[in-house]
């Protein structure tokens, strides 16, 4: 079983082997709380601060894969493995069970392995400096492993951001809004119902003009009442063009806006209860 120790307790004996060592480095960030990343190193004298040593011998992977130490280091030190570790760091005990399940690419040719080995050795010599030689070696690793893991550009960029997470505090793992999808939250009011033309006129928040749409079976019945307030989601292209495309409205997104029965005074009173002076 893998064992883990706080770095303060790591002894020289822990480095007696020439096998790669795996560290989980923890960082207490003032806003983000704890962050963690996987560090793979063959260096006997390199112990990152605030780290846990994961004493994993390559035998965990040896049974299945025939790889050199350097290839294994390239894979385990890369973005996919790092993201895997972060995904499973809720508990260290749990993590050590998951760590041997880190996805290892199966599509590495002998030539790929040779390139990875050379690149890792080059990086080791450059001691993680940002020299052109080191950057070139890292590029080679990126190219081979991106292909081996079948990563598209956006996924790779996301994983790389996760890897850089600790050094760049602004990087967030929170889901960011995709501004191009049909997810634009907005609201409006039914301005008028023109039954003779089977049309409904809508006033929509942030639009200049009244929007006219046809009455269709999927339209909620309560929208046939002038003055009815609604919440909905549109593609942002509607907002950008300041015009609804009547053919592309999804009526399933339309909901009656709650709390419209309340007076403005009641709404303000309601809001006020959530803003109170913090305790001294």
């Amino acid at each position: 079983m893998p064992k883990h120790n706080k770095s303060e307790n790591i002894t020289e004996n822990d480095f007696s082997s020439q096998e790669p060592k795996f560290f989980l480095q923890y960082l207490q960030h003032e806003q983000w709380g704890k962050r963690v990343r996987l560090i793979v190193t063959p260096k006997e004298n390199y112990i990152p601060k605030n780290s846990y040593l994961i004493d994993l011998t390559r035998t965990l992977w040896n049974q299945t894969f025939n790889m050199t130490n350097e290839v294994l280091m390239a894979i385990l030190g890369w973005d996919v493995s790092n993201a895997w570790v972060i995904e499973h760091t809720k508990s260290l005990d749990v993590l050590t069970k998951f760590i041997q399940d880190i996805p290892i690419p199966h599509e590495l040719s002998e030539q790929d392995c040779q390139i990875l080995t050379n690149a890792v050795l080059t990086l080791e010599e450059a001691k993680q400096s940002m020299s052109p030689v080191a950057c070139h070696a890292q590029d080679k690793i990126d190219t081979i492993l991106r292909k081996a893991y079948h990563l598209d550009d956006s996924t790779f960029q996301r994983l790389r951001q996760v890897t850089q997470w600790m050094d760049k505090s602004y990087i967030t793992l929170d889901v960011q809004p995709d501004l191009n999808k049909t997810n634009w939250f907005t609201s409006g009011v039914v301005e008028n119902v023109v039954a003779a033309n089977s049309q409904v006129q809508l006033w929509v928040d942030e639009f200049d003009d009244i929007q006219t749409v046809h009455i269709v079976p999927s339209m909620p019945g309560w929208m046939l009442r002038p003055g009815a307030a609604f919440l909905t989601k549109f593609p942002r292209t509607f907002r950008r063009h300041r015009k609804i495309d009547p053919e592309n409205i999804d009526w399933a997104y339309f909901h009656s806006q709650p709390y419209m029965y309340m007076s403005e005074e009641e709404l303000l009173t309601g809001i006020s209860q959530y803003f109170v002076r913090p305790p001294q």
Partner: protein
Amino acid sequence: MPVIKLAFLDVGQGDTTIITCPDTHEAIVVDCIDSNAALDYLKKEQVTQLRGVIITHLHADHYKQTANLLYNYEGCEVLAITKHIPNPRYLKGEKILKQWPADRDGHSTEFEQPPVKNKGSLAKLYQWCQDNKKKCKLILADSNVLLPIQGNIAQSLKVLHPTSFDLPDLKRCELNDISIVLQVTGTRASALLTGDLEPSGWQYLKGQNDELKSDVLKFPHHRGAWDEAKTDDLLSVVQPSIVVISVGSNNRYDHPHTDVFDALQKQRDLRLLCTQATDKCQTPVQGERDNVIVQFQKQSVKDNSFFLLPGKMQCPCAGSVIIELRDTPVIIQPNTAFHESLISVHFKKHKCFIRTAAL
């Protein structure tokens, strides 16, 4: 202190101001009446952390699209409002709105008797607060009340007004007078964001703060009682080199008032940037709208500037104003030559000027 970028978005009559810290990709939004514009700008600036949204005061031309922004940007950490809504625990049974007299240009009447459309904005805000109770924070300028916003960007922000000490007296004033006033400081340069503060509220602000001198002044934007003498007083204390007025072409408040222009013109080395032109600049200003917009579109392609297509009745002048607070304030947008040319060609009756000292 890090460099801070301020964007006064061209959203017509009302305010949508965005404070960003380019080094940390953080942002704070101060008031929001155009969530689409705010989101576009946050995306352009590659903001990853919206640390907070501050509503300076609850007039519709400051909060109208706040709920839309909050719902469309789920990662926002805090919504902050000052204590201008009496807490029912302390003011049980008191008429909330009636205690604030209408302001002189009458825009609180719109607030007191809103059409269903404005009420919808408030209902959405109420719903958001219900769904996000822990994110609702009170802002006061009291020394013992910490700014409820996290992150590096919060260090650049100081709340100057209102204090709980002044609030009882301010209740005799207008709702505008309890606008949250913020001082934002970049590397060294600073900006004063005044909400809709009127002269009566300004006296309280001045009385509580010795350090109001700021390089950039967001002029409190309603005509109200800002006559020439009172504007002179404001400018003499703040001593800005740049004044920004967020204004809509079609506003019905006679804003900005001629007295304000007169006072501004007396100041040397001051650059005035109005987001939109009004009939005071060209009569009718609508006649210039289409040509001006074409100019803006060309310019935005040329220098990658941030341009929002304005509403039907709106004609940009400076458009969205973006200023970096470094050792000195640096106007990123609008391009000076472009802005100057635009004014001289399209706004023959303009009351403003461009001087080189602040560039």
